[in-house]
């Protein structure tokens, strides 16, 4: 099988690392060769963060470059726009509609662009926009937005629901299992 590429992008502190661990766990259980690349350290402090996940028969490079991602899962609108060039032509994008102002916007030096989702679609991307924060609150906590988004992605893949749920159970702390199960299901059912 040809290598598939998934990017998870967002803002440092949004829980993208947990999402990539979950994804890595699912793909390993499915028997693929898997590589996941993430960057630790300074950029995690509220900066733009990106994780690359690749799987297939044999994966060489752990990183994803412009025009290579089959899926981009964005935890924030502006980050979706920033990383759009990394989407493969014909690839799919899942975008959390949450907006987080970057410091230049907070300081009034720049504007948070309006109509991001429309602009992504106009550029030719296949976009699923989802208010993951509300769904997470519905599941029990805003903190589970990352697991909601994983649910939305899961429904678009060939991997079965049970395999995903098993990975959720392996990845999240037992204390928060019920919350995360519910969050994942809400994401999975989202159209």
């Amino acid at each position, binding site marked *: 099988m040809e290598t598939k590429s998934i990017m998870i992008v967002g*803002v*440092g*502190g949004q829980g993208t690392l947990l999402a990539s661990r979950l994804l*890595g766990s699912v793909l*390993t259980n499915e028997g693929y*060769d*898997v*590589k*996941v*690349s*993430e*960057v*630790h*350290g*300074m*950029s*995690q*402090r*509220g*900066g*733009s963060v990106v994780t690359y996940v690749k799987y297939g028969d044999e*994966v*060489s*490079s*752990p*990183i994803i*470059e*412009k*025009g*290579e991602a089959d899926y981009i899962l964005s935890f924030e609108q*502006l*980050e979706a*726009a*920033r990383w*759009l*060039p*990394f*989407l493969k*032509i014909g690839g799919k994008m899942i975008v959390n509609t949450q907006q*987080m*102002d*970057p*410091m*230049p916007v*907070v*300081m*009034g*030096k*720049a*504007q*948070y*662009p309006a109509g*991001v989702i429309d*602009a992504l679609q*106009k*550029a030719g*991307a296949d976009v699923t926009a989802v208010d993951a*924060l509300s769904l997470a609150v519905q599941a029990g906590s*805003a*903190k589970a937005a990352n697991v909601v988004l994983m649910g939305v992605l899961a429904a678009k893949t060939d991997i079965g629901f049970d395999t995903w749920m098993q990975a959720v159970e392996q990845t999240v702390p037992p204390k928060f299992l019920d919350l995360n199960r519910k969050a994942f299901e809400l994401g999975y059912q989202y159209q």
Partner: protein
Amino acid sequence: MKQLKIGNEAVAMGLYEGGCRVASSYPGTPSTEITEVISKYDDVYSEWAPNEKVAMEVAVGAAIAGARSFCGMKHVGLNVAADPLFTASYTGVNAGMVIAVADDPGMHSSQNEQDSRHYARASKTLMLEPADSADCLNFAKQAYTLSETFDTPVLLRLTTRVAHSRSLVEAGERDDCGVKEYVKNPQKYVMMPANARTRHVVVEQRTLDELKWAETCEFNRVEMNDTKIGVIAAGICYQYAKEALGKNASYLKLGCVWPLPVQKIKDFAAQCDKVYVLEELDPFIEEHCKMNGVEVIGKEAFTMLGEYSQSLIAKVILGKETESLTADLDIPPRPPVLCSGCPHRGLFYCLKRLGVTVSGDIGCYTLGAAAPLDTIDTVVCMGASVSGLHGRNKADPDNANKSVAVIGDSTFIHSGVTGLIDIAYNQSNSTVIILDNSITGMTGHQENPTTGKTIKGDPTTAVNLEALAKAVGIDRVRVVDPYDLKQTESVIKEELAADEPSVVISRRPCALLKYVKHEKPLKVNPDKCKGCKSCMRIGCPSISFRDKKAVIDFTQCIGCGVCSQLCAFDAMEKGE
């Protein structure tokens, strides 16, 4: 069972399986997780040392005593540990010793882009470079045998993409080789001139022996495919090349990057029409090839800057570019910022108000240099804030009451304390602010000698910063809470005005620590908010401005209350 592990975890697994008994490191991105993972093994003694020099000396001492040892650090940490490295190369080891050094091409979390391979050549120390997590495990494990075979410390070089990428590994058995007997041997272990002269002869012969080994060792591997293009690469560049060129090229993958083979490279190059050396940072392998008369293409086609990638290689070698989409939007950058509730924020806000020159240091608080706080004037290396301030104040004593140094608790112990001794001993009128957030923050929360806990979380003695400052000869030592802006500013003002050196300890634990209790998020009362933007001056990521009013993001705010001290209209209200 195959497990998905980052390179650093795999290195730790390899060290464990290789019989490591003593590990000492100072945290530094992207090397930190190696030692964090080793600390989980009960049959390995592990510790965080005050700095990399101490860590390496601990490892040297343990290896000479007969225990397989380890120390790990980031690239700039090896500068600090270079002193023991160069002489440990002369003494050699008794039991094996492995040193991991993680370079950071692209500077994801570093102050420079140095290439640590030069240290291997300069110190005449064998260096291995893994290309994925499976290599990391295998190389780390085998490094102990190599170290004992050649009687040398062995360097294991990682780069960020290998250290922090997950790929599949399989755990093996531990080779617990016990503790070797130590036999007193001053000719080998006492490096005074007469002995060191004899040892230097041994070191030169050792390099020749290693070179002979490097020509045939399993670490250097040839993969022949199409021979129009030949690629010589090590580490992550081998992976990028494989992805970009696949079977359309042949490869010489170098797992040992010092010493570099000569004949093996010549033989490989002779079979290919055109040979590229693909290496990030400096032309280390390229120059070796050219010096030995092998015609290769390297930096004339590529770059010394930043990271390589499969698309860079495809573009340069094949002239191929991938199509991509762009949205018609102006996308503002999103630089890293101090976290919501970060105790450093209040301190930097006070320093900004005071308009002082700030000598900065390495840690999360380096972000005090970024807008809108814009406070820090200089950052060079670990500890340089304190000694640099002393230099500034000796050069310009008239402005000594308008300059301060800021340094974190862990960085202060690492190498700030020596600068403070210089300030006391040579009496400059310097004000040093220790940002004591009770943890090593930027690298992801490691204990340090001021926290009262060991790497395993066990209670231990803690350095008392106030007593330490007094003991080195600083009489004026003050403690402030950086959440209290009024107190913080007035104490710093007093210490700047004083005619002698002083230390101010800005003390408040990192807001991300698990034991730190968060308050309910604050809420802006829109009826009281006048839209004056005073609260925006602290650069808190929880505060934004919508419809001419400040808004607080409840998912981020931890209720620290610093912003409410800036609001003249009491608009910040405690949430429910």
